[in-house]
């Protein structure tokens, strides 16, 4: 049985909200911290790293990883909630 159109619309809206939040963070950690504000962040130091440089060559990648796994968990929950999961 397929879900009702209004339920479908709600599911899709929540999905888009999730995407908007995660992609906003995606933009901030890479284009923001790694490129646009790199000079400012470089004045902060963590160990032997300048923070802006660390974001560009390390931090952004770790953040990407976390984003995907957050998405996986969040969508699995959403799928169950709206009963559109596969099992």
């Amino acid at each position, binding site marked *: 049985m397929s879900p009702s159109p209004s339920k479908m619309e709600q599911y899709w809206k929540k999905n888009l909200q999730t995407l908007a939040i995660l992609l906003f963070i995606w933009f901030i950690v890479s284009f923001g911290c790694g490129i646009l504000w790199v000079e400012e962040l470089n004045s902060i130091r963590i160990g032997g790293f300048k923070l802006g440089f660390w974001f560009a060559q390390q931090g*952004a990648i770790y953040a990407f990883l976390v984003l995907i796994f957050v998405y996986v968990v969040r969508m699995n929950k959403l799928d169950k909630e709206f009963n559109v999961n596969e099992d």
Partner: protein
Amino acid sequence: MDLLAWTYLLVGLSFALYLGIAIWSRAGSTEEFYVAGGGVSPLANGLATAADWMSAASFMSMAGIISFSGYDGSVYLMGWTGGYVLLALLLAPYLRKFGKFTVPDFVGDRYYSNKARVVAVICALFISFTYVAGQMRGVGIVFSRYLELPIEWGVVIGMAIVFFYAVLGGMKGITYTQVAQYCVLIFAYMVPAIFISMQLTGNPIPQLGLGGDVAGGVPLLDKLDGVLGDLGFADYTSGTKSIPDLFMITLALMVGTAGLPHVIVRFFTVPKVKDARLSAGYALAFIAILYTTAPAIAAFGMYNIIESTSEKPIDQLPEWVQNWQQTKLIQIEDKNGDGTVQYLADPASNELRIDKDIMVLAGPEIAQLPDWVVGLVAAGAMAAALSTAAGLLLVISTSISRDLFKTFRPEISDKKELRIARLSAAGAVILAGYFGINPPGFVAEVVAFAFGLAASSFFPVILLGIFSTRVNKEGAIAGMLTGLVFTISYISYFKFVYPELNTAEHWWWGISPEGIGSLGMALNFLVCFGVSWLTPAPPSHVQQLIQEIRIPKGAGKASNH
């Protein structure tokens, strides 16, 4: 055992492993040939995607590129990993739900048009061919450097191996060999990195060693900034590229990554939508191990090279410098005749020329590791080149047998289609090998092409195909063609027609050809929207299709119907 014997042994063992897997997992139907029967576990698919994605260039050259460009090299690190976020969130789950075999399949069905399908096939073929020629060349180079064979022989042996498991095994054979290839390549990459990190900084984790202190208690990165500055180079931790250019290149690489057909197709091989999401996460995790180690290798390599050569007497250089001088990857010319090496930014007085591949290839010797590690690195480089080549060849053969042949001759049987798929894979291997032996002069330039085209053609129409119900076939075709023509023209103009004008003051808004795919993508979006609004909405069965791919429920295996 000497070095050459170890190299032969380890490369030979890895090849035997790949061939064994190919025989064990050969494909019996088109479904197995195209998408491995749709039964690959998310973890295996993540491993295979990582090997598929990381090419000879990622393995051998990326660390070196970062060594010589410092902060500017970050565009590759962020660009080639950030694309997986787009892939996981915006494309992979929906394309998996759509449930067919190829990217042109999706474009053709969603835009209810064989014209759109053919445009997509042309893009897929162009992207994959430019890419695969470079991989075959990479195989040849590894052979010639490590096994002391001519490049041509290397390419032929590489062709034979790929031929065997791609033609026989199709996607099924490729998937499981790629899993093995990932393990070989990551082990080969990490072992020297860990030892070098320990020697230089006392920290066995290269990602932390990069921020560690070197001899004298100075942080490695500060030391590099200082030393390079003294020699006239730009600071290691701050680049020379403009912010708009960095921005556009990173964006083009990210979006291009998400639009590459040989990466997308890997997500058709898992059983469920949620597996597609999860395996994108696994893929990035496995890729990130190498991509976060590369900048460490880059900095360690640069530090080691300067410490062991700069202002040192030419006849007392370390043994590894002398070894690699024989292969011409390190060249020293005593211009001022003082008997010492001057490494300087000014090309007129610089006496040291280093190939970028040195940072990875000479790693084991710099760290004074045993000979078998050198053999291991050779096997790793080979694994990286072969796995990517195989993935690309599969896209080429699928495009021909399924997207062109089957579309226009739908009555052919599964068995016949499989034979055509195998034949076109064979043809593609031979053609790729030809280009590997006789590389077109522009091999180094084609990376910009492949990513620019993927970004400006595929990505926008797939994205809009999922997230908009209003975009129609007229919009998609016009958008793809605009993005394609614009990007090809801009890159060709600066790379082939007027290479002497390829400098920042001639570029549009300071955007280099590497970053122009971002602008092509924006144009594609605009044209696609504009034309769609002026023409009728897609028919109701397409609206229905879009609603269906948006929910995971009911995803069967990838199928022909």
